[in-house]
């Protein structure tokens, strides 16, 4: 427990083969406390599979998964609640853990979903549902948060706000986050390490490194890389109170 003190989960050369096809192969990654690791890649590139391997949802895998915590909060990519099961947001919040009223309210407020507390889950819109899912995962104060496309269906301004929030959560709870996104552009500011997947690890590094990487450009097109660099450019200076602009 010296160097690995902050490591929450460590994947070494993991792979999963189903029906004679490798869904992912040779993926290694480490999620540390207080750090956000983002998996990006096109559809079917194995992002969700990799995340599921990390939290032990897939058996019969190749490679090695070491988990150093059991306190996991998970936001799955898709969740559908059958009509036969009447479930309010407040019931859903305590699904896997006992929480008192105050903690439920606090978590819902954090993700801007406190007004939904007494709503039936079936009546929520896509974006509202995502906020509730995120609130539920955060409410139990996990060591490791695994978020599979947590902002899908959320409007654009809400999306940026939620990513900002995820960043804040990582700092506040001092937890590690494994984030899945198909859009590097928006997660840019809220991530420490990016892993670009396409069945295997295409490239990885800081968001900027990945954006500049040739393999990334090949996968997502030159365009993606350019928008990104413009976006990044905006952040190379600060505005001081007297209107002066200072370079970082």
């Amino acid at each position, binding site marked *: 427990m010296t160097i690995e003190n902050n490591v929450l989960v460590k994947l070494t050369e993991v792979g999963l083969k189903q029906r004679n096809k490798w869904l992912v192969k040779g993926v290694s990654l480490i999620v540390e406390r207080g750090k956000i690791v983002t998996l990006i890649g096109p559809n079917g590139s194995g992002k969700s599979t990799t995340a599921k391997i990390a939290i032990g949802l897939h058996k019969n895998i190749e490679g090695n998964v070491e988990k150093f915590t059991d306190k996991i909060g998970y936001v799955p990519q898709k969740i559908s609640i059958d009509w*036969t099961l009447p479930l309010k947001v407040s019931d*859903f919040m305590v699904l896997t853990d006992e929480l008192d009223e105050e903690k439920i309210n606090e978590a819902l407020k954090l993700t801007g979903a406190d007004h939904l507390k007494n709503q039936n889950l079936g009546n929520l819109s896509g974006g509202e549902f995502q906020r509730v899912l995120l609130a539920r995962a955060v409410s139990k104060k996990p060591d490791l948060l695994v978020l599979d496309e947590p902002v899908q269906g959320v409007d654009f301004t809400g999306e940026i706000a939620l990513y900002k929030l995820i960043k804040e959560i990582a700092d506040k709870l001092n937890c590690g986050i494994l984030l899945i996104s198909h859009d590097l552009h928006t997660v840019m500011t809220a991530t420490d390490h990016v892993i670009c997947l396409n069945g295997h690890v295409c490239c990885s590094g800081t968001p900027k490194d990945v954006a500049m990487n040739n393999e990334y450009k090949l996968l997502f097109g030159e365009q993606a890389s350019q928008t990104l660099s413009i976006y990044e450019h905006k952040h190379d200076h600060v505005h001081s109170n007297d209107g002066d602009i200072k370079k970082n």
Partner: protein
Amino acid sequence: MFDDFFIRALIAGIGVAFVTGPLGCFVVWRRLSYFGDTLAHSALLGVTMALAFEINIAISIFIISSVIAIILVKLEKNTNLPGDALLGLLAHSALAVGLVVIGFLSFIRFDIMGLLFGDILAVNVDDLIIIWGGGAIILIVLKIIWKPLFASTVNYELAEAEGLNPDRAKAIFTILMAAIIAISIKIVGLLLITGMLIIPTAMARNISDTPKKMVIFSICGGLLSVIMGLFSSLQFNTPSGPSIIAAALFLFILSLFRIKQSIQLKN
């Protein structure tokens, strides 16, 4: 008090309704009504085994139903047949084999109608002990596995990811299903058990907005069905098991008016 056959029937029916209420909710939520049917059909084989080897009927049914459930899980893993085809295969095979075995046991006098549709008026004190004792155990176990079972009913991966061990909960729940069928076969019979599990629950869904309320209303619906069914069977001299299920259906129809109202309110 237990001398009167009608009182015994009432106590037995009430005992069963307390257990079918919560179990029925999971049957509906997890879409297991045909699975319940399959286990119930296999109960016939259990009864013939009990008669052939002179063991307790409830225990024999419990064992056979559990075996059928295990076979189902194995088949699901090892064949590509869809789940409903496998269930049909097992249900009717067990029923047929049971009837064939009865054919061989010609030396035993056997009330097949009582087995198919229940014989609640013939309940004796031993049956009451099995129903209330077994029912209490089922409810206690269900209470223990409630959290993982419910969480995995909502979303399996979420429950698994957050360390709740849904597979174990599911396996235990399957055993509970076999147990409820074993103890309630005498009340409504093997053809109507699934009705007792799902009709009060379906009624409860129409008038509840939380899982807890649904469980409570489901129990209430079952209790009312038993009481109404038994009294009307006494009054009109109708078969008691089917009368209970018919009463449950009546309650379900009533609940439809409530849901119509709530839909109108929403619009």
